């Protein structure tokens, strides 16, 4: 459990003497923008009065509160600052992050084709791709794992629990 009230590793009170923490600033700005968007769209919904609050009043208040909190975070990051850990340029994506992107990409593609492929085939292909991404290189092991689990999932969810999952063009 980390202590509260201070960021881990923060050097404390350098008054801008040290560089800003990039992650803190990125997070703060992103959430500030989310607050601005919320407040903007809230203004397009009836606000009403405090006596009879409209639908937009509560989200507007939340948007403004979020902007305020983001500003507090950014000020804190500026005031406390901490030495920036030497980071590689953004163009050089680490191998581990590439793995995450590939992993998510495979899931997104399978979701896109879920209805067309049908449940068992989607399971088979997605599992095969994910295992390959994570380094299960032996074809026999990979294929047999995919086949066995896809069959098991089909029997469990489709035949036993009778969940209406997409059949796809193989019709299973």
């Amino acid at each position: 459990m980390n202590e509260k009230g201070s960021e881990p590793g923060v050097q404390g009170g350098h008054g801008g003497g040290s560089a800003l923490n990039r992650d803190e600033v990125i997070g703060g700005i992103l959430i500030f923008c989310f607050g601005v968007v919320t407040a903007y769209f809230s203004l397009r919904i009836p606000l009403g009065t405090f006596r009879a609050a409209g639908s937009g009043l509560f989200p507007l208040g939340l948007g403004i509160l979020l902007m305020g909190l983001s500003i507090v975070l950014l000020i804190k990051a500026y005031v406390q600052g901490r030495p920036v850990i030497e980071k590689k340029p953004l163009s050089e994506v680490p191998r581990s992050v590439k793995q995450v992107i590939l992993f998510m990409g495979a899931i997104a593609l399978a979701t896109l084709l879920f209805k067309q492929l049908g449940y068992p085939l989607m399971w088979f292909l997605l599992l095969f791709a994910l295992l390959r991404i994570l380094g299960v290189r032996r074809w026999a092991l990979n294929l047999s794992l995919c086949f066995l689990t896809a069959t098991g999932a089909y029997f469990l969810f489709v035949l036993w629990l009778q969940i209406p999952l997409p059949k796809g063009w193989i019709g299973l």
Partner: protein
Amino acid sequence: MFESLQHLIAGFGIALTIHNLFYCLIGAIIGTLIGVLPGLGPIAGIALLIPATYNLNAVSAIIMLAGIYYGAMYGGSTTSILLNVPGETASVITCIDGYQMAQKGRAGPALATCAIGSFIAGTIAILGLVFLAPPLAEAALSFGPAEYFSLMVFGFIVLCNVTGTSLVKSLMMAVVGLIIGTIGLDPVSGVARFTFDSMDLLSGIEFVAVAIGLFGIGEVLANVEKPLESLEGKVLVPRLRELYPTLEDLKKSIKPILRGTAVGFGVGLVPGPAPVIATYSSYMIERNVSKHPEEFGKGAIEGVAGPEAANNSACQAAFIPLFVLGIPFAPPTAILLGALLIHGVSPGPMLIGDHPQLFWGVIASMYIGNFILLLLNLPFVPLFANILRIPKKVLLPLVILFCVTGMYTVNNSVVDIWMMLLFGAIGYLLRKLDYEAAPLLLALVLGPKLEVAFRQSLMISHGDFRVFLDRPISMGFLLATLLFLLIPVFRIIVKSTGKGGGFRRSVGGEKV
């Protein structure tokens, strides 16, 4: 008191039907598995299994889901002891002495102490639940919208104060959760908000998608990024005959178990990640009262018995605010609130009167579940430990496929899967940027209630904000909220005067 006992006996009648016993057993087994597997906590586990309960009646569904919650608490200690990797966050403390015991060839007694301690704590906590819930529910009947609003604000602030690395960041997450909770039809006027003319968004963001995304997919992605070999260490699997603790072990454990139970029960009643705080507090107490504090960290059985009892006791006590007030104080109970609402049950002061079968049936099932877990955990520990031998590179893709299947079955909608993936990516980014997702989830579930309470309060007072201060209970909660907001300021002052000093230790890659 006798009336409660009579109701409890009736509850046993409900919980002991073959149907409910079966779901209690299933919940306990799945919960233990979820607890055993690092990276899949009770939040994702419950969320994942909610769709499987759609065809069940509310009593059986909640019996199973509650079983997953406390079963995960039992199972979480297994990986802590055998691998020095906590199965879920509440088991972090168990790593300290549990793993040391395993290193000395005493994994069996450590695991057995966990199971016995959890059983005793669970049993006592259920008795507390039986006798405390009805009078509290009666007291809660006097709560109006202003009291509920202040109580929820208090809950958010306490949760934000004790989770994550920064109060500001946790508050930001809570506000983001509240904003996401406003998507869909306004609960008061029925006006569509932030739907951008999409029919899929009219009923709001599916909270199961958010829960599985943030805690299931997000956790898997965070694991994918790690070198996978790091969690595939040699598992020490104890043999059955090595499991049973000696009489000396039991003598040493009993007082820590009782103290842990009391601490856990108290902590479970207040907002926050109760099991985590309870285990931490119990460990500190045991170390302070011990005649041999130097043994802590080197395999002291008291350092396992106390926290594990506290963990389970807190988990059971956390059902009191959920059932009695209808307000969950922690993310796992927030998921259970969502499940209750899906099954058409609205928890609150009227729950005991309106749905006695559910209330007393679930409580009785928790006792039975604890007994099942005691029976399961001792002889089947070698089996559960063997599950840890499944390589993570096989386990993680399977978790993803179960998430996709579970998500689709909620509404038979691919849009929900996209939503889950979106929140999975957000969950991963939050971990990277060091934000805590728990306040977001709790705020998402409680958001609509908070808004309704806020607007009703202002309507009653004709727009006068003093309504929150004029009512004594509401003012009490707001004063307590203010106190919790000032805690970080006091900490900074204490730190700057050089009196600060904390207890920090790295266990299994997590700071405690």
